[in-house]
Structure formats: C-alpha cells, structure tokens
C-alpha cells in the first residue's frame, strides 16, 4: 500500500465520491422543495412530489392560466395572470439563444397585493410546440386591481439551436404582501414612524415638486421583518408616503426629472421603474451603480473596482448608458485611483448630455481623513477639468470622512450642493467656490445628503445624523431648509 498521503487522500476521496448516491435535482436544491431524501421510502415520496410538481407546471403552461404559487403551497390559487407581450428579445448566444421576455401580470384581487418572485415560461416554435422550459427569479410588486400591471423582463438562455418564435409564461411563485396603505404624517410629527419602523432616509429622487421617491435603510432591531431597505413614494411633495418596494439591502435612488423613470441600487440589486415607481424591473448590470440621468435613456454611473488593500483601496470607473440603464460602457475618470467604494461615491451629476460634475473622494493618512476634488466636463465625460480641491476648507467638520457624501447640480447647472459627514456645501458658480451652509450643517446635524432637484429652485434632501432623521426641502435653491417630514426612527 502506498504511503504517499496525497495518493491515499485521492483514493479516499474517490471512494467517498463513488458512494454519493443520486444527485439532487435543481428544484430540490434551489426551490426549497424536500431535500434529497436519503432513505428508500422517502426517495419514492420525493420523486412523487417532483413528478406532481412537474405535472402541475406542464398543465399550467399548456392551459396558460396557472394561478401562481410557490412550490410549498400550490393549493391556494392566487389571482395573478401573466401575459407575454409581443416583442421578446431573442438573440444568438453561444450554441443557442438568450434574451428577455416582457410580461404583464394582472392581479384580479381588489384587496391583496402580491410580490411575484418567480416566473416560469415555455419557449415555443412556430408550430406552437414547446422547445424548452425555463424558470427565473424576478422581483415584481403587483398592487390590487386588474389594472395594476408589472412588466418584468424575464431573462432566459438556452443551448438549443432552435430559435424560439414565442413564449407562454405564468407566475410560478408569489406571496401576498401588505398593500402598505398611504400613511399621512400630521404636523407635529406622528410618534409612529410613518414609513417603516426604523426607516432611515438616505436618498431622495423627485420628478417634479410633488412627485418623488425616498430611499433608505430599515434599521429596526425589534422588528420581525428583517428587510433592510425600502423605497416609498409621494405625490404631495413629501408630506405623505407609502412604501412601494422593500429590498434586502439599503436602497439608493436616482430619477430623471421630467420623466417617469427611476433607478434603484440596493446591494446586489439594480432595479428600474418607468411608471413613477409603481412597478420595478430588475436590471442585470452587475456592479454598476446608477448615479445621474438627464432623461429616460441617458445616464451616468460608476463601477466600483475593489482594491487588494480593503476598504478605501479600490478605484471606480465612470459608466455611461444610452438605453435607460440596460447596458453600460466604461468612460474616462478624472479621480485618483483610491476612491472610496461605497454608497453614493463618487458623486456624479449631469444636467445635459455634455455638462457634468464629479465629486471625487479619497483617503488621506491611515484612513481617518479624506480629501475631495470637483471636476467638470463639457463634452459628456471625455475630458475633465479640475475645478476645486478640498471643498471642505474650514468649519467644524474639516477632516471628517465623507461617508455617504453626495453632490447634485441644479437643472440650470450653476448651483450645486454637496453633503455628507463633512457638512453641507453650496456653489453658485458651477463648482469652483463652495460655501459652507451652517444652518443645516450645525454640529447637531452632521449628515445631510440625498439631494434631488425638483425644479431650478426646489430641492429635497435627507437628514441622516444628529437630529432625528428627516426629509428636508428648500425652495430657494438650497440656501434655507425646512423639515417636510420627521422620522422618529426605531
């Protein structure tokens, strides 16, 4: 017998591998269906369950009216109907085809909202024969009423060489959700948190002076709901809100003023809405973080590239989209390579396809202090000119790390606001000279960010630190501020 430990280890591994029985199916591992049963009677039961499940899916697909439910509870039908919109994207990919299938989901219930988490579709050929089935996770919130529809793009890929000529889809998994009725916030503020327990607003996005979104994180130690991000919508200038989307991670939002489009970044999720935040579609764009859009198509973001030295050692690539965030291409970057890879950083703000500012932050010393610099472009980001170094020249917050720093230009482009842990600053000459705003940057209020310009004079922001969290509004282009809504926290 060999004494070589490596050989004996390999022999042992081979013997164990040969004893591993039947591999579990995809459904058993991913869908939370029964785990691979290890004993004979259970194997029979498991196969019977799988056969029943497959039978149910096939039946549903052929009839086209499967009333969606997850694998654990198919007995309770839900009033959700899926219809495939003509015009699915089907492109050659490898040895087969890939693309997106746009689907509308109708909710027949007038009282219950649903969160759709999985769609199942059949790709069919010209004769109507099923070529293959695919199932994909989606995230879609369907509000009550037959007119409430969502249109997720259901992605698929197949190695089959036959090009699908159509699709039939149904909702595979959906869960009833609290419809989050609008909650009015009286003045003085309601002691109950009006958006969600522990909601901390970090970002706003306004299409006009009445309609907007607020995004943030839920930090609720005592709640059963472990969700940690939320997006709420307002139609009365921020006085009342209701939650339209909850996310697994703290959420950040960008809107295109004057359109109905919005983009959300929440951890690994990237979502887009084209209907004032009522419904959301997932964007499969990897790590790109959307930052600024001038219309429903043209936008800028950045792509954090982690460094080998941990936090603060990474770089970022400015990214550009011309199709509403579906695809991105890299663009030049004026910033030093040691950017903070973190929420809202670096801050990019464009007012036309040519004119934009970027506020870079980087670390100085042993990670305790930071510098920043503002660069301007007049050619859409091809070339950048340094406008201002150290816009935090003095004040009580000099040297603070700019965690969560945020910068945003007014629609005219001459006024901009920049905020974060280092205080709030304003420029009225396009970014060369920045003035400290003591009224919202007092030592009690050390973090105002999430700026969103609803008009050339009206701008919204969120107060994160110091005094209780709040949504703020200025009607004089950022000189003076008022609390629109106080959020008492958890």
């Amino acid at each position, binding site marked *: *017998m060999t*004494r070589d*430990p*490596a050989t*004996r*280890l*390999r*022999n*042992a*591994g*081979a*013997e*164990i*591998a*040969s*004893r*591993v*029985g039947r*591999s*579990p*199916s*995809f459904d*058993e*591992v*991913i869908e939370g269906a029964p*785990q*691979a049963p*290890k*004993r004979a009677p259970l194997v029979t039961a498991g196969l019977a369950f799988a056969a029943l499940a497959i039978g149910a899916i096939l039946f549903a697909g052929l009839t086209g009216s499967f009333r969606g439910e997850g694998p654990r509870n198919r007995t309770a039908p839900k009033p959700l109907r899926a219809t495939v919109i003509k015009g699915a994207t089907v492109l050659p*990919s*490898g040895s087969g085809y*890939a693309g997106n299938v746009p689907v509308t989901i109708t909710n027949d219930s007038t009282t219950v909202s649903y969160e759709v988490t999985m769609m199942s579709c059949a790709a069919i050929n010209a004769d109507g024969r099923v070529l293959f089935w*695919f*199932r994909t*996770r989606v995230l879609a919130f369907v509000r009550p009423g037959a007119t409430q529809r969502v249109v997720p793009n259901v*992605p698929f*890929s*197949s*190695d089959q060489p036959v090009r699908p000529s159509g699709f039939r889809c149904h909702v595979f998994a959906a869960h009833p959700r609290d419809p989050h009725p609008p909650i009015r916030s009286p003045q003085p503020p309601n002691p109950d948190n009006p958006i969600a327990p522990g909601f901390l607003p970090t970002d706003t996005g306004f299409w006009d002076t009445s309609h907007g979104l607020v995004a943030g994180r839920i930090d609720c130690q005592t709640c059963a709901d472990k969700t940690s991000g939320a997006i709420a919508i307002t139609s009365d200038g921020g006085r009342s809100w209701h939650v339209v989307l909850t996310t697994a991670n703290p959420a950040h939002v960008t809107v295109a003023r004057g359109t109905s489009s919005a983009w959300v970044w929440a*951890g*690994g*999720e*990237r979502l887009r809405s084209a209907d004032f935040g009522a419904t959301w579609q997932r964007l*499969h*764009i*990897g*790590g*790109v973080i959307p930052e600024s859009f001038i219309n429903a198509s043209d936008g800028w973001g950045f*792509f954090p*590239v982690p460094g080998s030295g941990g936090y603060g050692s990474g770089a970022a*690539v400015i*990214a*550009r989209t011309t199709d509403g965030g*579906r*695809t*991105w*291409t*890299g*663009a030049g970057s004026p910033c030093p390579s040691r950017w903070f890879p973190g929420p809202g950083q670096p801050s990019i703000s464009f007012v036309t396809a040519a004119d934009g500012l970027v506020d870079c932050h980087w670390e100085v010393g042993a990670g305790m202090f930071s510098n920043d610099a503002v660069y301007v472009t007049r050619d859409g980001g091809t070339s950048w000119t340094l406008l201002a170094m150290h816009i935090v020249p003095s004040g009580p917050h000099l040297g603070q790390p700019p965690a969560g720093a945020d910068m945003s230009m007014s629609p005219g482009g001459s006024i901009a606001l920049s905020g974060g842990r280092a205080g709030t600053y304003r420029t009225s000459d396009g970014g060369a000279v920045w003035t400290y705003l003591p009224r919202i940057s007092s030592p009690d209020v050390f973090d105002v960010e999430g700026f969103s310009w609803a008009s050339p004079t009206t701008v919204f922001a969120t107060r994160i630190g110091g005094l209780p969290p709040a949504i703020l509004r200025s009607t004089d282009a950022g000189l003076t501020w008022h609390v629109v809504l106080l959020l008492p926290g958890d």
Partner: protein
Amino acid sequence: MQTCRHPCASLCRNEGASLDEASIQRFLTGDYARVVAAVTLACGSQASAEDAVQEALRRAWERGQRGEALDSPTAWIAVVAMNLAKSGLRRKLAERRALDRLAPRAGSDLSEDTMEVMAAVRKLPRREREAIVLHYWLDMPIEDIGKQLGVTSGAVKNSLFRARRSLEKALTEEVGT
C-alpha cells in the same frame, strides 16, 4: 448565458460563472459528488457534507440572481460548504446525526484505508485540512486556494507542507500499529 455588460472588462472574464439554472444542473450532474467527497473528507460526515454542499449551492444561486459572478464556482461552493459544515447548519446537522443513529445508512461502510485517511485528516488543524483537500482531491491550484481562503499562496504552501507531514506521520503510525 448572460452577455457581459460590465464596463470593466477585467471583471467580465467570469461572467459565465454567474450561476444560472443550466450551470447548477451541470454542477449537480458533474462536480457534485467530488465536492461532497471533499467536504466529507474535511468534516467527517457524508450526510452533513451533502446538506452543506446543497446549502452552499443555494447561496451561490442567490448570488447569481443578484448579478454577482463567482470566480470559480466549484471552489467557492466547496469552501463555503466546508465553512457551513463546521460552523453553521448546527441544528440541521444534529438532526441528521440523530437520524443516522436511528437508522444507519446502508452503504456507509467505507474501506478501512479510507476511514484511516478520514480520521487522520480530521486531526489536522482546520486550515491545513481545507488546503490539503482542495489541493490534492479537488486539484485546485495553490493560488486559487489562497484566494478562496483569503490567505497568501505562501501560507497555503506552508499549510500543505505541514498537512502532508502530519498525514504521513499519522498514516505511518496507523499502518505500523
């Protein structure tokens, strides 16, 4: 497969590794048994290893759904499953052990040689155990092991050297007695 849309090409090279249903099915029919064997070698129980690998696979799928790509899915799943088998899934694994005691699994009678190797591997420190299984059983390059375990290649080489020496000693003693 999804096409790569990252503006930074260097991060795109493994876009194909973001786990979709087809690639998970490929893993289940291909590498599954090898990875279960690897985790079994490192943690000692095949049933626990299967649970841990399936949980790791579920987590890999969720990452894929979030648009994240994995550098080396098989290695990632193996390392995560090893961690899970050690630190997580405790309750589930306790249940599994209780079931095993009630109804011992048929076919778990491994050869004496394999049992000896497993016992010797289990005596190694955790890092050495992981390194030697990943390198000699899953044939992972030293550099990849370092990346997955978050240590330098030098540290992996050191672990491998020590593990090999300890195993040699333990297995020689076993044979000698």
